[in-house]
């Protein structure tokens, strides 16, 4: 199972402008982290996606994007797994 996730992580990291990515379960425990994404932020990322899901609980979980001047963090929940991708703005 980890092999599949590792493959996804490698694929994401090979995409241009991606500086890091992280996956966590519904409890906020880190499943995988690579690049600039730190294992410690797994809990916060799951909390952010849960908070966003509360906006419209009857709809599919939304994609959350956090933007600063140079970077973007995209957070998406799929079932019990939450993924975050850290990108550099082009």
């Amino acid at each position, binding site marked *: 199972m980890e092999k599949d996730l590792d493959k996804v992580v490698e694929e994401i990291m090979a995409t241009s402008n991606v*500086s*890091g990515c992280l996956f966590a379960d519904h409890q906020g425990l880190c499943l995988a982290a690579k*690049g*600039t*994404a*730190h294992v*410690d*932020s797994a809990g*916060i*990322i799951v*909390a*952010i996606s849960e*908070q*966003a899901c*509360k*906006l*419209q609980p009857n*709809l*599919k979980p*939304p*994609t*959350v*994007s*956090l*933007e*600063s*001047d*140079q*970077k973007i*963090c995209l957070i998406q929940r799929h079932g019990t797994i939450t993924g975050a991708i*850290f990108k550099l703005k082009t």
Partner: protein
Amino acid sequence: MEKIPDKLGYLILTEEGAVLESGGELENDERVATIVTDLISLSNSVDPVAFGHNEPLKKISIAYEDHWLTICLSNKKIYVVKRSIQAPASEGIAVNV
């Protein structure tokens, strides 16, 4: 706020989350206001390694299939706008073969 195209609703909040102005689908929506302020305080503590301590967040977007919310902080006020996503014209045209 009036000039934003495809706007479905908007909220202007204080930093504490009190509603100053609102309109459209978000009119007096205190539930969304609370969720948004909680979301902002959570977002401020997101990964300092990836984002850097001196790089504050400028914008938060929450995208659904047919609409999205965008959240910005300016002049000590929180601006929330709900906008619809228009499908590209080509997708809306049925092709008969």
